[in-house]
Structures are given as C-alpha cells and as structure tokens.
C-alpha cells in the first residue's frame, strides 16, 4: 500500500517536472514561458519531497523533517524570483505576443489604424530610453 502511494507520488512529481521543462522549451514568448517552470517547482518538486518524507519517515525510526525545510524554502522563493524575472524582462522590453493595452483599444477601429500607430509606440520607447 505504502509502496503504491510512494510510486504514484514519485511518478506524479517526475511528470510535472518534465511538463514544466517542456513548457519552458516549447512555449512561444517569454511571459508564457515564465508560467511553465512554476508548475515544476510547486507540484513536481513538492510531491517528490512529500514522497521522500513519507519514505524516510517509515524507513527510519523518527519523522524526517529535512524535506519540509526544502519545500518551505522553494515555495517562498519561487514567486520572488518569478517576479524579479518578469521585472527584468519588462525593463529590457522583451517581445510579447500579447498586444500593448493602448494598441488593443485602438484595434477596434481596424488593423490599418493599428499599423499606423506602431511607429509612434516605437518612438515612445525611444523617448523612454533617452
């Protein structure tokens, strides 16, 4: 019974770790790629560490609490690093597939208007840099 639970947790954790990296490799732009590895951090490594805690608690003579420390640390630091990464990407004007907010408001009037507006967005960016 314990063997089955441990195997299921290990397989789930490894699968989610793989899916996170698959998302990192396959998704289209940086902001969607940022979304993929967070699943690997929380679900993947989380269930692997739960499996490890179960294994060492039933194997040894005392409850194993090293895993809780790693889990806690990862769960606290993952949002902080993702926030800093997205801030750095916004600072460097990394290309996004989603349109800018002003452009999407103009898009109702037709795509020709939007193409006319994109150079002004470019000059706006230049203005921000100088």
């Amino acid at each position, binding site marked *: 019974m314990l063997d089955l639970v441990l195997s299921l947790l290990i397989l789930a954790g490894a699968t989610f770790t793989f899916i996170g990296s698959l998302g*990192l490799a396959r998704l289209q732009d940086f902001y969607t790629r940022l979304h993929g590895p967070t699943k690997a951090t929380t679900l993947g490594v989380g269930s692997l560490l739960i499996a490890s805690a179960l294994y060492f608690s039933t194997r040894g003579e005392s409850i194993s609490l090293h895993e809780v420390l*790693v889990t806690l640390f990862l769960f606290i630091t993952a949002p902080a690093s993702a926030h*800093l990464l997205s801030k750095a990407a916004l600072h460097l004007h990394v290309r996004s597939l989603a349109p800018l907010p002003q452009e999407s408001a103009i898009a109702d009037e037709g795509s020709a208007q939007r193409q006319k507006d994109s150079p002004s967005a470019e000059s706006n960016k230049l203005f921000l840099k100088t």
Partner: protein
Amino acid sequence: MLMNIALPIALTLVAAAFALSFWRLLIGPSKPDRILALDTLYINAIALLVLLGIHLSSALYFEAALLIALMGFVGTVALCKYLLRGDIIE
C-alpha cells in the same frame, strides 16, 4: 517492489527535463530566457537529488538539495538585479 519500476521512469523523466531546459539555455533568444532556464535547471537538480536520495536510501542528500536551493535563488536574484540596475550591490 513497485518502486523499482517507478524510480527508473522518474529518473528518465527528470533527465529529459534537464535536456529540455538546457536546450532553452542554449537557444534562449533573450537574457531573461537564459536566467529562467538556469532557474529551472536548479529546480531539476533538486528533484534529481531527492530521487537519488530515495534510490540510495540515504538521507545525506537533503543538505545538498537545500544548499542548491539557497544558492540558486541567490544567483537568480543577482542576475535579475544586474539586468534591472546594471549593478548588483549599489
């Protein structure tokens, strides 16, 4: 018994995850992409260390996993600060 089947499959999946993250680290078009790939690589390293600890029935590897988590976070924050401000400690 069932663990003897599950562990090699899990190790293979994590190794494939390593390969995919490394691919993104090599081709990543922008600098934040490469930092994100490094971030994912250290998460994968923690997963691999935990699996190795279960495989070898040794609780020795958690200190290493904790150390990797700590240093990986500090590294990600330092690289992001460098991209944001052009300097790490001002």
